[in-house]
């Protein structure tokens, strides 16, 4: 098998939601490439998972709901865990909290909390990281999105809305800062054989067969594509969303 080289100007990557299967796979590849890592998770279990797998990494317990709430009472980000993220060259955002419910059926409190975490908290985090990148005029940001954003499914409205919002944030960032060396894009993944996707595929095996590829994406495949999108060679993929779904969303 042939292999082609990729190049990376930066040396430090921050992976949010690193305890997810995709986050772990991305962190593993970055670690193997000798990249300095800052990894975040929001639960004790997640922290234990990444600490054990990446003992040399800076580990961050990051609850974006708390981050969003703390700035609304004006304590700023310096006192929050965000202040521990130091000058990353790359940001991979795999963070996504779990919540499904019908629009008319979900509890208002749950809706507010979900969006605080996945939209407000994400925006504040992206602001924090991108300002550091702007200061050194280099940075590459990547948001891990989902085809759920464009293929509506009952019960996934809030998830879809937060993914579309994330794509919009990362798209705008790339438009605003590309001339200053900071670029950004999103990857919209179809069915992935990992994490919550594994359970979904098990319960809905017919769903995967709707994809022309007739199979789910592996974490390894997703991680390899993400790594390519971080590379110097992919920096002109900016302000846009790449779809990786085996052709799922191309079909009627």
């Amino acid at each position, binding site marked *: 098998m042939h292999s082609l080289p990729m190049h990376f100007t930066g040396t430090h990557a921050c992976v949010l939601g690193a305890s997810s299967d995709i986050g772990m796979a991305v962190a593993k590849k970055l670690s193997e490439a000798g990249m300095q890592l800052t990894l975040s998770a929001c639960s004790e279990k997640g922290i234990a998972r990444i600490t054990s797998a990446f003992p040399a990494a800076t580990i961050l317990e990051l609850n974006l709901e708390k981050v969003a709430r703390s700035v609304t009472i004006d304590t*700023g980000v*310096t006192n929050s865990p965000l202040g521990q993220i130091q000058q990353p060259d790359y940001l991979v955002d795999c963070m996504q909290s779990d919540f499904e419910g019908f629009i008319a059926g979900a509890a208002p409190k749950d809706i507010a909390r979900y969006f605080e975490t996945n939209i407000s908290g994400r925006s504040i985090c992206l602001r924090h990281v991108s*300002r550091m990148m*702007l*200061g050194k005029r280099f940075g590459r940001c990547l948001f891990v999105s989902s085809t759920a954003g464009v293929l509506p499914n009952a019960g996934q409205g809030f998830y879809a809305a937060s993914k579309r919002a994330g794509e919009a944030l990362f798209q705008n960032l790339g438009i*605003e*800062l590309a001339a*200053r060396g900071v670029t950004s894009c999103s990857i919209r993944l179809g069915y992935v054989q990992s994490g919550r996707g594994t359970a979904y595929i098990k319960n809905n095996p017919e769903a995967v067969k709707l994809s022309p590829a007739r199979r789910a994406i592996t974490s390894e495949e997703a991680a390899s594509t993400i790594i390519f999108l971080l590379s110097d060679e992919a920096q002109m993929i900016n302000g846009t969303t790449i779809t990786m779904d085996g052709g799922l969303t191309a079909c009627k």
Partner: protein
Amino acid sequence: MSTFTQVQHVITEVLEVEPEEVTPSTYVLRDLPTESIDLMEYGIGLNKECGISVSDDIVFLKSLRLHMAEAEDNGIEQQIHLRSVYPHLSTDRIQEILQTVNAGPVLQVQDIVAYIEHAKRA
């Protein structure tokens, strides 16, 4: 290094202009090719150069006209209201700003210097 030199350095780094082009009385948005995104970079640069976390809104007088209107709506003298919003600016400088506000964006390099020095003292 003086505060003015620090501010001058940040601006010349971002705009890639000569230091001679940035004096205390230089209008940041009238005399220099500053775009709104540059203001953001100035804020980040000042943070790095001076070790002070700046409020972009206050240091760059972004909401000056809003605060002027606010004073008028609440029947407060503009001079007094602006002094409370921008404590780093002297009474004379605020008076000057009010007199020249219709000529264009009033922010001068000396206003940024005043903000940083005020923050350093606090």
